[in-house]
């Protein structure tokens, strides 16, 4: 039923489209609140994630003595809600948003630098710091991150005598061999949105392509590779309509032997007693290369409200980012702690997560290179993916069109 939930989010987003009129009536400035309590906004709307996050907030409320009034919205509603808050000066005091969104929000001038609250970025993965940095200042830091890996069905691979693939050639061969009896070798998402781009980026970046030039030769090769997987029948043509939840559904149902997906889905796989799965890093073009996945996860940021509430929000954020809460959150939600030392500790304790931990070291921030321009390029890249996978244009021409669309 996850697709229903997703659908609901979309409509909610659409409704907000109407609500987001430029000059919405100005509400009361958020500064009226006593500093003893703050409002917090996040999009952990699913049951498990929401409960885990609530626990973290409760812990930090007890530790800092700040009362936290939590609001949660569906993912697609996050940015419209923030923009609405920005125009009516009713932003929350503390915000946890998807990291590529941070540039957009920071660009509005609605965020405060985290150095104001004594929050430093020492010991964090560099890519995470980059994702939260806008024009040289850090505006957002994540307590935990995620990425994509290759999740495989141990039973199906063993039955076919296939080893978990490490390179593109091995992945192609394994997917072909596993495709039989109405099952596909591989499943991934290629829907026409950021989600599709995010799933394609590990192939794009691992092959050495750059977002500043999406029609380069390595980019074309990466798109051609993914297109071949679909054209050869190793992956379903339906990937252009599957979001990541659908992909997980296909994997759980046994319709796909391998899938590209994120760590946050592992809890769902664990619920299936009969399903034995393994996780390896995303296969790379050549043996010995490092997989480069896009960095996912939510960054905490403190919007401009009033002095006392900002300080209170800063205190709470510091608590969320402290090692014990960071570890607790990562365990509860299958994220990777964003501090290198904490992540190492975590990986040693959670072997199933080791593949993800390994990848974070080489992961890239989606917005580091393009900043605010990222969404447009991402949209163009998702389009190119769809155009190539449906056979409307060959990979090179699809990307040429994307370069034109994103360059303007």
């Amino acid at each position, binding site marked *: 039923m996850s*697709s*229903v939930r997703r*659908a*609901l989010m*979309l*409509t909610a*987003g*659409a409704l907000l*489209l*109407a609500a*987001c*009129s*430029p*000059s919405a009536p100005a509400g009361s400035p958020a500064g009226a609140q006593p500093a003893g309590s703050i409002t917090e906004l996040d999009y952990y709307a699913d049951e498990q994630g929401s409960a885990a996050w609530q626990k973290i907030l409760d812990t930090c409320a007890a530790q800092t003595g700040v009362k936290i009034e939590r609001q949660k919205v569906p993912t*697609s509603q996050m*940015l*419209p809600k923030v*923009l*609405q808050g*920005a*125009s009516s000066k009713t932003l929350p005091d503390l915000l946890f948003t998807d990291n590529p969104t941070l540039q*957009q*929000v920071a*660009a*509005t*001038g*609605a965020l405060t630098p985290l150095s104001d609250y004594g929050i430093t970025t020492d010991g964090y993965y560099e890519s995470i710091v980059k994702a939260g940095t806008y024009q040289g200042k850090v505006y957002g830091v994540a307590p935990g991150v995620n990425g994509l890996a290759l999740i495989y069905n141990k039973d199906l691979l063993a039955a076919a005598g296939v080893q978990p693939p490490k390179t593109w050639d091995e992945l192609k061969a394994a997917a072909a061999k596993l495709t039989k009896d*109405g099952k*596909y070798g591989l499943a991934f998402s290629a*829907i*026409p*949105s950021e989600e599709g781009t995010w799933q394609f980026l590990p192939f794009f970046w691992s092959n050495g392509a750059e977002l500043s030039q999406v029609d380069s030769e390595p980019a074309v090769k990466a798109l051609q590779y993914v297109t071949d997987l679909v054209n050869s029948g190793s992956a*379903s*043509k*339906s*990937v*252009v*309509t599957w979001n990541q939840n659908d992909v997980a559904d296909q994997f759980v*149902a046994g*319709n796909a032997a391998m899938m590209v997906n994120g760590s946050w889905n592992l809890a769902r796989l664990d619920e299936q007693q009969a399903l034995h799965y393994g996780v390896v890093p995303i296969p790379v073009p050549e043996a010995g290369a490092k997989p480069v996945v896009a960095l996912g996860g939510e960054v905490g940021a403190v919007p401009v409200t009033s002095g006392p509430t900002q300080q209170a929000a800063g205190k709470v954020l510091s608590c969320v980012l402290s090692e014990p809460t960071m570890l607790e959150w990562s365990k509860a939600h299958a994220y990777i702690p964003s501090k290198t030392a904490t992540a190492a500790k975590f990986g040693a304790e959670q072997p199933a997560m080791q593949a993800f931990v390994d990848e974070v070291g080489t992961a890239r921030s989606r917005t580091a290179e393009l900043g*605010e321009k990222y*969404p*447009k390029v991402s*949209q163009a890249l998702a*389009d190119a993916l*769809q*155009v190539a*996978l*449906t056979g*409307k244009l060959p990979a090179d021409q699809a990307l040429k069109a994307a370069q034109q669309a994103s360059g303007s």
Partner: protein
Amino acid sequence: MTLVAPAVTASPRAGRKPRRENRFAAWLFLLPALAYVVVFFGYPLAANVVMSTQDYTVKSFYTGEAPFVGLANYAAVFGNPLFSTAVLNTVLFTAGSLVFQFGIGLALAVFFSGRFLGSALLRSLLLLPWLLPLVVSGAIWRWMFDQDHGVLNAALRLVGFDAVPWLSSTGWALPAVILTNIWIGIPFNLVILHGGLRAIPASLYEAAALDGAGAWQRFRHLTWPLLRPVTGIVLMLGLVYTIKVFDVIMVVTGGGPANATQTLTTWSYRLSFGDFAFGQGAAVGNVLILVATLFGLLYLRSAKATLAEAAA
């Protein structure tokens, strides 16, 4: 949606002159409705028109500053290769939905106007698609359309056909979303047309039957002409509803694959919240409003003509 009053005849007191205080009272009664329209329709509409002439970015939401760019957003939108795709898809989606919704709705309405066992029960069951939230219908259809495991293709295979790539091919995706929308729209047409049929006096049919008119002749010469005012309303409302459909397409295909189901509404959303080109998104929205208004005026004109005809 039960405002079906077929064939309004001219008021018998048309000749009387309204007195001054009467007219004042009339305006007083109109005031709340007027205020509502100005606040909830007029203001957002004006804001949307203003926005379409501005370079409205994410930053503008916070600072309130959005430089005036004249018609640049419209130029950008019209110059975008997706514009013609979106317009064509909108036309196909609207026309395809309307023709079949209306045709099937009318056939069902005529069918149910005969009295038989279980007629009322069946009719209420047929209302189901209308009662479901659009996102739920959309999600269920998306699931049924699945190429490999969807129930539609399972049925097709059963009778010996090949599976159809409903949502994963650029050729089939638009027919698939139109099919979904037809299914959703049938009850509306059925209910209103059924109401219209009930208003036609049974004695006319008895007389026609006596004159030896067959079923087709009765439909052609009695039902169809007498149903005309209702037909006009159904088609007009259907047009306005269909042209602005957003959720069905968003849920079933998200505008894909490869923009094959991108309509003006989904494109407007995408420009605003995908590209953050809010000015361009507003421009597309205004184009849509203009088209809907145009059809609204056409309808008013034809309705006036019908009334004049009826009065004469």
